[in-house]
Structures are given as structure tokens and as C-alpha cells.
């Protein structure tokens, strides 16, 4: 065999191996042809693994009164948010007057008309006005949930969010929490606001 023909033989063998690799490839796709589609065909089917999905954050209702959030209104979430999408508004309210026990005068001391007992300081508590989330800017980083010192915030698991304008995604978290607490079917429970 002279060199030319040996080279030709090698070329032919290479070509035949190449052609065989094509047939193998066809076999692979042919095999896949008969299998069921892997698509989850939305909206006829939906996925079932959303229980760990990071959806927009929501307030956790307190155990005693589901209409009140557990949030202590410290503002840590607002500070730690990188995008500035949380806005918490609150005001101080004085506690309502409770029944005061009679001031105990020390035994034997005559009541001095000039020395009056100082008036009892009324306790002031923070009351929530609004808790707004601008979901247009949220990056779902979780810094707010992590920085909350109590159990005020958590991720919801809503994945199917759609709207027609940016204002559809400016959430009033207090209203959403209350709507959820009143149960499905109540007014405003399926609205985004």
C-alpha cells in the first residue's frame, strides 16, 4: 500500500466513524421523541413547589389579634433595605387612663397641701399607621426579614403576580395582612392593594 492509499483508507475510516456518530445522535433524539413533554403547561397545570419561594414580604399577624401585626415598629427593615422600598409610618399614642390606686401616703405623715404627688406619667405606645412596600424596587434579598429583631416580617410565596401598571405593585402590607386574616372571600382579600 503506498502512502496515498493508506491516507485514503484512514480518511474513509474517519468518515465512516463520523457518519456513525450522526446515526447515534439521531438515535438519541429519536428516543426523546417518544417521551412525554416535560413542560408544566401553564395555566392548565401549575407547579407545586412554591412553599420556599421568595415572594413579596408580608407582615406576620400577632397571635392575640390577627388584625394587628407583630411588628414593633423599630424601622430596622426600612434602614437595611438596599432599594429603599419599605416605608413604615407610625405615631405615638398615650395609653388610655387606667384605674389608679389611691396614692399611698406614708404612715403618720400629715398631708402637706404644697407637696402634691407628681402626676403619673402616661405610657406612650407606637401605633402603626401604614406599612408600604414598593415591590417595583424590591430585589428579594431578604435583608429586611433577617434584620427584623422580632417576628414581624416574612416572605410570602406568591409567584403569580401580574399587573397593568407600576401602581399595581405598590403594596399596602397592612391592608393585605388584614385581608388575608379575614379569610378568603372577604372584601379586598384578592386585590393587590
Amino acid at each position, binding site marked *: 500500500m503506498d502512502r496515498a492509499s493508506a491516507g485514503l483508507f484512514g480518511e474513509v475510516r474517519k468518515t465512516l466513524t463520523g457518519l456513525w456518530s450522526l446515526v447515534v445522535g*439521531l438515535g438519541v433524539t429519536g428516543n*426523546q421523541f417518544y417521551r*412525554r413533554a416535560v413542560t408544566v403547561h401553564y395555566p392548565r397545570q401549575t407547579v407545586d413547589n412554591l412553599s420556599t419561594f421568595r415572594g413579596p414580604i408580608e407582615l406576620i399577624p400577632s397571635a392575640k389579634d390577627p388584625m394587628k401585626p407583630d411588628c414593633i415598629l423599630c424601622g430596622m427593615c426600612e434602614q437595611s433595605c438596599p432599594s429603599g422600598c419599605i416605608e413604615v409610618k407610625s405615631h405615638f399614642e398615650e395609653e388610655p387612663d387606667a384605674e389608679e390606686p389611691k396614692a399611698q401616703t406614708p404612715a403618720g405623715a400629715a398631708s402637706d397641701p404644697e407637696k402634691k404627688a407628681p402626676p403619673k406619667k402616661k405610657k406612650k405606645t407606637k401605633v402603626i399607621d401604614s406599612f408600604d412596600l414598593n415591590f417595583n424596587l424590591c430585589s428579594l434579598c431578604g435583608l429586611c426579614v433577617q434584620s427584623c429583631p422580632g417576628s414581624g416580617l416574612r416572605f410570602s410565596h406568591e409567584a403569580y403576580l401580574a399587573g397593568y401598571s407600576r401602581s399595581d405593585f405598590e403594596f399596602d402590607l397592612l391592608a393585605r395582612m388584614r385581608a388575608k386574616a379575614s379569610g378568603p372571600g372577604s372584601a379586598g382579600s384578592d386585590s393587590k392593594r
Partner: protein
Amino acid sequence: MNVLGIHIAIELIQIVVAVVVFLAFIGVNVLILVLMERKVAGRFQRRPGPFEVGPHGSLQTLADAVKMMAKELHTPGGADKILFWAAPIITFAPVVVCFMPVPFGPKYLTGWEMNLGVVLILAFSGLGVFGICLAGWSSNNKYSLIGAARAVAQSVAYEIPLLLSVLAVAFQVGSLNLSVITAGQGSWPWQWNVVVQPLSFFIFFVSTLGETNRAPFDLPEAESELTAGFHTEYSGMGFGVFFMAEYAAMVVVCSVGTILFLGGWNGPLVNGPWWFLAKVYGLLFVMMWLRWTFPRVRFDQLLNINWKWLTPLALLNLLVVALMVKLV
């Protein structure tokens, strides 16, 4: 004189009717084929394919056709108007003629009986290249020009092994008449020409992939490299006509393959046009299977395959067949 006149009139009417029927045939076929391609692609990729328009997406192509017809026919700035809009027509028109000599069924289901059916088909499919060339040139677009140059080089190159493999069958049968070739094959698969000439069939099939610009030889339409090649600038029905021309060419080429190698309208129990259509669609399915499996061949490798492998092989094949025909 009068008899001749009537003769000519009858033949003219026959031709006109045949052309109209074939236009309708092409139209329906394209509708089915586009959907079939997308559904088959979906199946290979483990996904549903078109699903929303019509039950299981069956009306998808119709919706696409309506969309295409409603689009603006925009001529790019600086383009040669006449050539630009003549190009799709020049690409599409010859394909209709190619259906004329094809026998769809045993008795009278041929557009026009002719002794040189094979030659007609080869000649007119060569004309389509001219349209592509015009499209690329008149678009006034660098991408189109490069795409057209590639397409022309490819089509011209792959015509040669195509011709040679078809000639091999013609040698064996002794006629270029497609009806004769079909009638010469029997009903059962072992009586078809592919058993006698498998190499010719292989060469023929690969050449048709090159002729019709189908993957893995679809570099002229390489979307990921040069946007859309020679039909970049066409919108709406201009593109629609190119699209139809491509699918119609595929059907022509698969029909020729069926007739030459797979027995045409012959079939196991009852001969008829249903076997013909089944085989044509089988070959089309294989073409789609190849498209959705393999990556694209680079252009110089494409031409190398043709000039270094296919053409010498086809010549060798022809020589062997000629020898066998002479000796046997």
C-alpha cells in the same frame, strides 16, 4: 388546422387546471408542513409546540399566514424595487412547474405526462437559485449579500451529485419518465429501487438537503450568525413567498425521491396516491429529524463535503451502475 387548434386548446386548459391544482396543493401542504415542523420540533425537544390557536395548535399556520398578509410590504431604502419584488416570485414560480410530471397515483393523476420528467424537474429547480441571487443583491444589505452568495454557491454545488444519483436510477430503468420509473417498481418494500441502489439513495438525500438549504446545510439562513441571510429585508408576504418556496421545494424533492427510490404510489395492499403521500411525508419527517438534531456545517466544510466526497462517490456509483446494467 381546426383539430390542431382544439388539441392545443385542450392541452392549454389541462395545463392551467394542473397549475391551479398544484398551487392549491402547495398551499395546503405548506400549511400542514409548517405546523408539522413546529410540532415535531416540540416533540424532539420534549415540549408541546404550538397549542393555543385551534385545538392543539392546528390553526397556527393559518394565523401566521393572516399575520403575514397583513404586514406592510416595505421596500428598503436604496433597493432596486423591480428586482426586489420580482425575486420571491422568481424563486416560487418554478417550483409549481416541478409538480407537473410527478405521478401521484396509478392512472390519470399526473399533471402532464412527459418523457423527460426528470430533466424538467432538475432544470426548474435550478431556476430557483436565480431568485435567491436577485434577492440578496437587490436588498442593498451586506448581510443579504453574503447570505445570497453562500446560497448560490451551495445550490449550484449540490446539483451535481443530485443529478448523478438520479442518472443512476435512470440508467437502471432506462427511462426518464417518472411514471415509467414508478410502474417499474413493485408493491412491496423489497421491490423498490432503494434495495438495489442504497448508495444512490443516500447521495440523493444528502444532495437534496444541500439543495433546499435544510439543516445541517442551512448556513444561508443561519439565524444565529447573519440574522436571516438573503431574506433579511423581506417582510410580510415577500417573506411568506420565500417560505412557501422553501417548503414546496422540500415537497418536490421528497416526491422525486419517493418516485425514484421508494416506489412512488406502489404500496402493500392497494396502490394509490395515499401511499405516495405517506412516503413523501415520511421523507419530510426524516428531513425534520435531521434538522432538529445536528448543528450546522460550516460553509467551507459544506462545499468540501460536496466536491471531495459526494461528487466522486456519485461518479463512482454511476460507473458501477452503468457496468452492472451493461453486464446484467
